[in-house]
């Protein structure tokens, strides 16, 4: 579904991503792991067109999309739930969710909204409240709900766990399987290596802007090198 070949990108004169190669197949949950500053968020932003690639190619569902505008990517079915949530603080929860369906013109938006409220009853209780007044966990739910409102084909989840209580993180990560069941492929970006790999089929390890390791989750979890570097075992 998503094929990344020799992708390089950065900001200004600073190169952040070096020669990235990745493949994501339909229906997969793929984990992208790495420490702070490894380039995980930059990679996602490049895929979304928020950062312009320097070289290399990105093919999404058979179409070359590298360097296309963000709204074009969203139209193609790519969506990102950003780290730090980026909610529209001045708008109500419901309006935030509805902006997720911004490019949709079908009649099932109301239905999907009801689905989101079933998935996150807390959002339903607070739908008229300004999004800026939500707690961290609720904001993350709102951001995830907003992404789902676009009916993404491929969802990029950027560090949902950031600054959240473990119990909320667990609940959100458990939802990833549910999201896949509903037909969305997921690229899960996490710092919590074990939690991420336990829920993914495969994983890529990003270090210093390069992919240094990849494989199935079980392979990665049992890899000596990874256990040493990330799990401290």
């Amino acid at each position: 579904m998503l094929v990344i070949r020799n992708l390089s990108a950065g900001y200004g004169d600073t190169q952040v991503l070096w020669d990235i190669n990745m493949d994501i197949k339909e229906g997969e949950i793929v984990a992208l792991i790495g420490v702070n500053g490894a380039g995980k968020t930059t990679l996602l932003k490049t895929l979304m067109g928020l950062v312009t690639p320097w070289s290399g190619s990105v093919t999404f569902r058979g179409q070359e999309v590298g360097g296309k505008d963000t709204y074009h990517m969203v139209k193609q079915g790519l969506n990102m739930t950003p780290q730090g949530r980026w909610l529209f603080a001045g708008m109500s929860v419901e309006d935030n969710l509805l902006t997720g369906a911004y490019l949709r013109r079908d009649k099932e938006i109301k239905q999907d909204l009801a689905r989101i409220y079933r998935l996150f009853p807390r959002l339903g209780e607070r739908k008229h409240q300004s999004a800026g007044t939500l707690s961290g966990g609720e904001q993350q739910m709102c951001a995830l709900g907003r992404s789902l409102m676009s009916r993404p084909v491929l969802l990029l989840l950027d560090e949902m766990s950031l600054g959240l209580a473990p119990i909320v993180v667990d609940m959100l990560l458990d939802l990833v399987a549910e999201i896949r069941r509903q037909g969305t492929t997921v690229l899960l970006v996490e710092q919590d290596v074990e939690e991420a790999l336990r829920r993914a089929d495969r994983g890529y390890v990003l270090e210093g802007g390069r992919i240094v390791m990849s494989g199935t989750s079980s392979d990665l979890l049992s890899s000596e090198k990874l256990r040493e570097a990330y799990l401290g075992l």
Partner: protein
Amino acid sequence: MKRQRNMFLAACVLLLALCIPPLTNDYIVQVGTEMAMYAALAGGWNLIGGLTGYPSFGNVAFFGLGAMLAGALSVNAHWPYWLAAIASVLGTGVFALLLGLPLLRLKGHYFSIATLALAQATLAVVTNTKFLGGGMGMSLPIVGSPGIFYYVMLSIAVLSALITYLLIHSEYGNTLLAIKSDEVAAQAVGINTVLAKSSAFALSGLLGAMAGVVYAIWQSYIDPPTVFEPSITVLMLVMTMMGGAGTVAGPILGAVLIGILTQLAMAVSQNASSLVLGLGIIAVVLFLPKGIMGSRRSGKGGKRRGKNTFPLRG
């Protein structure tokens, strides 16, 4: 209920405004025309500065270009004024749209400074273009009566408020609000932010040009330094901020209040008017950071978050 009350209030204000020429004297009508002009200009500024969150310091460029272009087309190209006016307004709109594309890539102070430069650059170009009247300025034929110009300016002010009202209650208005609240998030949900911002800037330019076109024929003499006077932009900004940025009534309220204040101060002394304006600005910033209408509004809207304005690093 609240909507009906607001509509009723708007109708009352409009009725009152319509009664001014037959019931008062030329002086009041003259002041009223100016207030209506500023209400239209501030309303136009509000579209980009208030609704979209891009404080432009160069909106006078549209006012000035609108006035000079209409004047030139009518005096130098001998077009009938109505045709010159339409061409000038449309031309200025396109000018705003095209310049918006690069300018609106800048954010915050950078955008403000660039628009300030835009106004000065437009002034320089107009001053050095012979067809546009150059530094000499232009005399237009004297037509109409004070009452007519009052009603025309008032119509533009009403149009400006109407556009704002329709925008706020439309999906496009929500798009602009999304951009104001978090532009990267707006991009991430699929909004073509460049197009949305540029069209808001163009609408702002259209309204500015309309006021300029009428100003030119009303004053019957125009020259670049007058119609490109930077303080015109400052007034648009202050009026909108005082009345309430992002609201329908805010720019009108601000234009009327500043208009009255200026007249009162002028009655005391010519210099006092700048003093009053200055004190007014300080008072607004200190006591009514969201403006008069903005402070009344509660619930919807809420605080804009201060931190994390540049979430692009990561």
